């Protein structure tokens, strides 16, 4: 007779012991923090348009660069990971999450030297985003170009 904790049943049986993440609460936290980061982005964009006279399109670059600088600094101060435990996707999905991935990897591997440690490990976590973004943009770009011909 097969028992609850036998090898074939174990994985299923164990599910009831594993606390489910509070999905609703996590989504609320992600929504609020993610939304706030985007609001900061909007404020930065308006600032660059208003004060420096950038066009809407051109303001995107300094906005991104500023958000990235803030995120890198918060990572260096050891604050970003605490925020991320609270916000989950709310801090990972915005461009700030990308900057944190690069900065945290670079910072962590400082002990292996500036070239092999910092330089060699910087893209450990963010690399897949760049790779998949580039590959998909290539494919979609080629397809769209062919269709337009």
């Amino acid at each position, binding site marked *: 007779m097969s028992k609850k904790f036998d090898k074939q049943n174990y994985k299923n049986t164990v599910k009831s*012991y594993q606390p489910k993440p509070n999905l609703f609460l996590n989504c609320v936290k992600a929504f609020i923090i993610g939304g706030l980061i985007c609001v900061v982005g909007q404020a930065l964009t308006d600032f660059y348009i208003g004060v420096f006279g950038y066009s809407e399109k051109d303001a995107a670059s300094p906005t991104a660069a500023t958000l990235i600088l803030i995120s890198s600094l918060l990572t260096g101060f050891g604050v970003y*990971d605490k925020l991320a435990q609270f916000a989950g996707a709310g801090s990972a999905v915005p461009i700030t999450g990308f900057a944190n991935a690069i900065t945290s990897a670079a910072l962590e591997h400082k002990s292996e030297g500036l070239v092999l440690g910092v330089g060699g490990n910087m893209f450990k976590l963010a690399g897949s985003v760049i790779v998949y973004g580039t590959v998909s943009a290539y494919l979609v770009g080629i397809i769209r170009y062919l269709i337009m011909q």
Partner: protein
Amino acid sequence: MGKLGKQTWIFENQVYINETATVAGPMEAQGPLSETFDITFDDLHCHEDNWEKAERKILQQSIQTCIQKARLQTDQIDLMLSGDLLNQNVTSNYAARTLSIPILNMFGACSTSMETLAVASALVDAGFVNNAIAATSSHNATAERQFRYPTEYGGQKPATATTTITGGGSALVSQKPSTIRVEAATIGKVMDYQMGDPFDMGSAMVPAAYDTIKTHLADMGRSPDDYDLIVTGDLSSIGSPILKDMMKEDGINIDDVHNDCGLMIYNSDQPVFAGGSGTACSAVVTYGHIVSELRKGRLNRVLIAATGSLHSPTMIQQKETMPSIAHGVVLTREELS
């Protein structure tokens, strides 16, 4: 002395733990067992340049303190058995080059503490060495950067995750009588029940703890009542109830005597998710708190089943599951005449 049953070693030549020493990091120093640590650090870097050096300092200080407490010199130690979580056991090996003690490297992940204690006891019992030190260490940051993510990375951990403790524990074993006797050890088998989430090691390691404890009791012809405490290394708040129910399904009830080192080392209000883990978890709790309770006579016979998860990040990326192992050692209180 010798083999008993399937997997158990009985030490009849009277093997004793003469001294122990424990070192712990900042979070552990804020936990309920802070008084039982010989040395604590309030800086996670232990005033060193990098994480690996910090862990090495912890292990070295643990071993040196143990030797000092036993009123011996380093060159009077015949053998050191040591292991840690880092690739190539670098903490143990680089500490050993400073200590200049002959060394046997062991790796059992978080079961290393009892693995080293068991083998140290066997070698002492058989007379191959007069004394031996069993030691192990772990460090939160070195484990995070090797097994998971850079320490400042913003990855959200689930409630089932455990926190690798920062600490080091060592025990000096010899045939010289003391209050703490090493009665027996049960060597575990690798068990794999197809669990594959490295953020829930507790439930992955339960089958190993179950198998080793069950085999131990059968080999010794005992029941849980024969023990004041059966403690697992780091099954955490997730694995502990699973173990108790899994053993009950086999008619063995450990409810009254079970505890888990990972649950004992931190307060419930510390941000540690499901509890502590790591090679040093079972070591610092056993060599600090449990040894102290045995000495005071509050415990008389304890089975420590240290549990280890034997995966690596590469294995997880290759979609492999997580095999686990548990080694058990029995410590008893002896009245010295």
